[in-house]
């Protein structure tokens, strides 16, 4: 007699479905509603697979968003679906996952309902795999969390069903009475009828006198309410009752009535159940033998399935573990790589930033020096040279002193004038926008009479790519070299070769003059050139020997 499960399960899920409905009632998502219905009423649809997929995706999304409650509700739906398909262990795992997620959540009405629901589901799963103690344990837990009667009734029913399965009718009676009590408080006729029917059924197993009364009263209420599934349930129970009492005639009557109702309901599961009942009542020895056989086969099959599911589940668990370990390994590797690359990038970027800062600082230093030079030279030029010139005119035209003395005075004044003017020329700002022509003018400035000056094509160096502050420094360096040649070398030829190769440029300056010893006073000028070149990250080298001319290379 394994059949009562049908009725109990039927309303167990009806109720969970409605609870979950409450949970998502604010959600206007149509597909959620659709797939929810697919899951909770599996007999109405064959789309369980797509429902699973839908919920898996939803769960992933919700978990990544941190919406744990929604994920839990969907996990519950998936667990129900898995149960319906017979994947009991998967269903268990899903429920446990939901339970774990709930552990981290604050306790409130929603989470409490969810936890209670999940615990109830675990009870159902364990009952199905005949772990009755576990089932009772989880139902008890669910009961502790139940918010009110309507929450606790299905769980209590489930408990009494486990007791019936275990033939613990005394305990079943207790819970059934409790349910009826709660149903009476609710004043819900259909609920009361269902509780009375169940109570009567348990009482009948205990051979109690009230059994028939209760079952018949329940049937009457149901007939009045036109509750066809309920009526079916009543007739089924009555049929069993009379069969137990040995009244086969009555038992068959009720079974036939149940069959009619099943036909009215036009539901395969009701029909199957009703026909199965009729077969149970058959006195044909072949049918009895057949029933016995199918019963034992199905229970053996169930045990096999359970075993297989257990193994499959364990394998799956191992696989997941291995996968997780591998993932962890992979992740650690990735982290390592990321860490090392980040480290290297940080060093490279850091070095680069420091280098750039340094470069910029150098450039600013050079630019400041150049600006200062230009400013001072303008002062010397505008003020000093002009003033001396004024004094000279005054002396020339107005001063009445002996001619010889006047000449001497004018000579000295002119010397001061020329020197101050030359300071300004040497340090004035340089317009480097057209650098070749600036250089040509520079050469012209210091072009000694009778000296040939030859240059290679200026365009050998891409001047566009040379920054302004570098051009100014180069200008000053060449100026220094030209002044040296003009003043000291007695050269008859100056050559300036421009060479550019990629980002490396050189200017080779040479004259065919008398040269100088490297320890001589001219070294001051060479030092200046070297300083200017290092300031712009370049270098300067030269060679000169007395009587051998001069050759200097500017690298930048």
């Amino acid at each position, binding site marked *: 007699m394994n059949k009562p499960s049908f009725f109990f399960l039927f309303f167990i899920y009806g109720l969970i479905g409605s609870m979950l409905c409450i949970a998502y009632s604010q959600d206007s998502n149509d597909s959620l509603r659709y797939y929810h219905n697919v899951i909770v009423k599996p007999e109405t649809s064959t789309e369980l697979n797509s429902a699973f997929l839908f919920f898996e995706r939803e769960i992933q999304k919700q978990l990544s968003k941190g919406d744990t409650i929604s994920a839990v509700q969907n996990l519950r739906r998936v667990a129900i679906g898995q149960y319906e398909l017979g994947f009991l262990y998967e269903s268990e795992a899903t429920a446990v996952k939901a339970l774990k997620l709930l552990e981290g959540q604050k306790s409130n009405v929603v989470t409490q309902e969810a936890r209670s629901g999940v615990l109830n589901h675990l009870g159902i799963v364990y009952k199905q795999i005949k772990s009755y103690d576990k089932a009772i344990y989880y139902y008890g837990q669910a009961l502790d969390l139940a918010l009110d009667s309507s929450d606790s009734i299905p769980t209590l029913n489930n408990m009494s069903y486990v007791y019936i399965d275990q033939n613990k009718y005394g305990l079943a009676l207790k819970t059934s009475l409790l349910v009826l009590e709660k149903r009476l408080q609710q004043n819900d006729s259909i609920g009361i009828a269902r509780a009375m029917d169940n109570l009567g059924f348990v009482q009948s197993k205990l051979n109690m006198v009230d059994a028939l009364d209760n079952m018949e009263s329940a049937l009457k209420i149901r007939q009045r309410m036109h509750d066809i599934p309920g009526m079916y349930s009543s007739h089924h129970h009555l049929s069993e009752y009379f069969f137990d009492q040995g009244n086969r005639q009555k038992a068959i009557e009720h079974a036939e009535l149940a069959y009619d109702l099943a036909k009215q309901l036009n539901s395969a599961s009701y029909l199957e159940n009703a026909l199965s009942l009729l077969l149970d009542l058959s006195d044909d020895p072949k049918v009895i033998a057949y029933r016995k056989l199918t019963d034992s086969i199905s229970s053996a099959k169930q045990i096999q399935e359970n075993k297989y599911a257990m193994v499959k589940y364990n394998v799956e668990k191992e696989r997941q573990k291995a996968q997780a370990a591998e993932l962890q390994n992979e992740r650690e590797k990735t982290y390592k790589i990321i860490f090392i690359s980040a480290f290297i990038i940080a060093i490279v970027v850091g070095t680069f930033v420091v280098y750039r800062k340094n470069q910029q600082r150098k450039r600013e230093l050079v630019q400041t020096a150049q600006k200062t030079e230009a400013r001072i030279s303008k002062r010397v030029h505008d003020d000093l040279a002009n003033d001396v010139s004024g004094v000279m005119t005054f002396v020339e035209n107005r001063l009445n002193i002996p001619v010889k003395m006047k000449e001497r005075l*004018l000579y000295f004044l002119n010397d001061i004038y020329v020197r101050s003017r030359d300071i300004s020329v040497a340090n004035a700002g340089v317009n480097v926008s057209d650098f070749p022509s600036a250089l040509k*003018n520079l050469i012209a400035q210091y*072009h000694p009479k009778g000296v040939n000056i030859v240059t290679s*094509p200026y365009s050998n160096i891409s001047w566009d790519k040379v920054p302004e502050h570098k051009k100014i420094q180069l200008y000053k360096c060449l100026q220094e070299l030209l002044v040296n040649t003009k003043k000291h070398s007695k050269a008859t030829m100056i050559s300036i070769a421009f060479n550019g190769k990629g980002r490396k440029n050189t200017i*080779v300056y040479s004259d065919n003059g008398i040269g100088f010893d490297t320890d001589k006073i001219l070294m001051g000028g060479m030092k200046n050139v070297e300083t200017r070149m290092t300031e712009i990250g370049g270098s300067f080298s030269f060679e000169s020997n007395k009587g051998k001319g001069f050759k200097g290379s500017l690298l930048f």
Partner: protein
Amino acid sequence: MFQKVLIAEDHGLTGSGLKESLTGLSISEILVVHYCDDALLKIKAALQQGTPFEVLITDLSFKVDYKNRSLSSGEELIAEVKKVQPTMKIVVYSVENRVGKIKTLYDDLGIDAFVGKDRRDINEIGKAIKQVFEGKTYFSESWQHALRSSENQLELDDYDILLLKLLTKGLKQEEIAQYFQERNYPASSLRSIQDRLGKLKAIFGAKTPVHLVAQAMERGFI
């Protein structure tokens, strides 16, 4: 001789000295002003009165002082004057001695004379005015060489460098000519190559092609 000359010079001693230097030239009116703005005003006024100035002698740099000025340098003044009275003769009188700067005064601003403020040049102001009066452009002697320098600077061209490079590879003059001809380079006849070679030898003071190559390498040209 010119009848009306305007001197723009902020330096008192220099201004009066200049005026003095011109006394021997029988110029009837010499006016000295100390600011560029003043100079421009005077020029405009004289123009309106029908007695325009013929020559402007101006300094280039003017000291900055409390006065708010729209023209702060001789260059700016010259540019404005050229707009108002293009025929005005311009003589620049300055401590400036950068060749490039002076060249641009002639080339871009179209001045007629530049006279330096050192002793040698001061005495040339009269000479400069006379030259300008004759419609000539005056170059102070000390500048003539420098101003002509850029014409005397010899910038080798790419073909010169190429020729030197080919010589280092041991090519003979005929082969170089052939090399030039194959690539349609200009002046590719043997004669032209020889001329070019001669010019280069002269520049580098070389007697033979080998010597030339050595010189060019030594001086960083190849």
